[in-house]
């Protein structure tokens, strides 16, 4: 594999980590959903490029699924949900963007430190894919615990799934049926989460999940 092909793969995978940081940085709902669409677009580009350099045509299907489902259908549905919940103009109070960013940098450093020695024998491409995929996954988890709004938590969850796709692309011999079932389970999850969002709103008049904590009597 020549240098340029590897560099482009590095560009897309690194771009995915960068977009994960942009997700952490966004505090407006509409901007968040648009950034998530960008996240999915970058992951589908990355998968398509790797399909090209690995000569694995079934990965093109994965890329197409990521593009259609997660860059078009899910953002569209989320925009609809946000407008119907009436939170499309709210600015989410994010606790300390700076601290979250620093924690994110720490997580990226951690995943690179962990993954590079472990995957050293798997080849350069798989190695960097795994390192970046773990970073995206941890950043998604960070987003889920640092946000209070249920919709941003959903987006954090979806971005984790993008990281998983990147990891699966690096690993050779991932059957297509797994990809398709994952994509559909994400769609089903979106529907279930959408129903839940409206139920939460009906019950508490807000989608701030701290209302749930209060309801359980955990904290004021």
């Amino acid at each position, binding site marked *: 594999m020549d*240098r*340029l092909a*590897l*560099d*482009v793969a*590095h*560009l897309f995978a*690194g*771009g995915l*980590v*960068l977009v994960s*940081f942009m997700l952490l*940085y966004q505090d407006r709902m509409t901007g968040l959903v648009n950034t998530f669409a960008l996240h999915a677009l970058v992951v589908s580009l990355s998968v398509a490029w790797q399909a090209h350099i690995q000569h694995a045509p079934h990965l093109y299907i994965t890329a197409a699924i990521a593009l259609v489902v997660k860059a078009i259908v899910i953002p569209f549905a989320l925009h609809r949900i946000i407008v119907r919940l009436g939170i499309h103009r709210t600015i989410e109070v994010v606790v300390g*963007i*700076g601290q979250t*960013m620093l924690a*994110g*940098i720490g997580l*990226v*450093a951690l995943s*690179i430190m962990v993954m*590079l020695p472990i995957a*050293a024998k798997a080849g*350069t491409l798989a*190695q*960097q894919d795994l*390192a*970046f995929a773990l970073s995206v996954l941890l950043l998604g988890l960070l987003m889920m615990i640092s946000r209070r709004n249920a919709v941003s938590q959903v987006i954090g969850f979806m971005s984790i799934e993008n990281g998983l796709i990147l990891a699966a692309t690096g690993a050779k011999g991932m059957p297509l049926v797994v990809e398709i079932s994952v994509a559909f389970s994400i769609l089903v999850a979106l529907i279930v989460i959408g129903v839940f969002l409206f139920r939460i709103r009906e019950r508490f008049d807000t989608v701030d999940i701290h209302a749930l904590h209060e309801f359980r009597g955990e904290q004021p």
Partner: protein
Amino acid sequence: MAIVLDLVVQLGQMLLVLALAPLFAGFVRKVKAHLLRRQGPPLMQPYRELLRLLRKDVVLAHSASWVFRVAPYLIFATTWVAASLIPTFATGLIFSHAADMIAIVALLGSARFMLALAGLDVGTSFGGIGSSREMLIASLAEPAMLMVVFTLSLLAGSTQLSSIAASLQGPEVGLRFSLALALIGLVMVAIAENARIPVDNPATHLELTMVHEAMILEYSGRHLALIEAASFLKLLLYVSVIACVFFPWGIAIAGQGPLAYFGGVGVYVAKLAAGGFLLAVFETAIAKMRVFRVADFLGAALMLGFLATLLLFVTLAG
């Protein structure tokens, strides 16, 4: 003989940056005015301003101490030395053996320290506000700049700007995502450090959100002229760093003869024109942000610098 030539190149470079700095500032102002459908001041206006200020008397506040009087000379001197360390049109400058990129960051840091001291010295509340805000910006901009420097040094295997520029010109580099991140981070730092629009407004004089102008409000006469010249130099310095590191094509490599040097000067001026035009377009297109958002803006620059270094490790491992 070679040493003499190097010395001539070094001296020429020092004079070139000093001569071009006000012109560059005037060019950016002119382009901005044209973008707003205005005539704008002539290109030579910054020179005239400097000359006028140099001829005027200095008015000192009663409470001003020696720090206030010494600071402009030190600020100008450190900024000029830092600017002369950057290979603008030729690599292999004689001074660059004495100081690398970290030294440039340190020189700029000491200039800023003295400016902040001078702002505090007179004891007006405006100067104090300016100094404290400048320190807020610096505390985030300097680490971000250093992370960018580390990224470049890791890639080039040297902290000397001449070697970095020469090695980034080579075919070894390829397409690096880290370099793109470092470029964006460095541009953000440059905007914040030079008090350009999203962070501070260079055109205003009395506004509650200003940073740089608030610190130098008490200065007049030749002191003000020196500080203004230093800020022109600093703007030119950042544009030159970006040009010589990320767009190193056309720089004369040491020992190529006088023709290459003249070509290098031409390319350098063309790069400056492009950079000034982009800066003016960016400043016209964007609105100034609140002072409290600056921390987020520079935090993003710092994050980009960190990320560039981290991603570089992944590539270097492969």
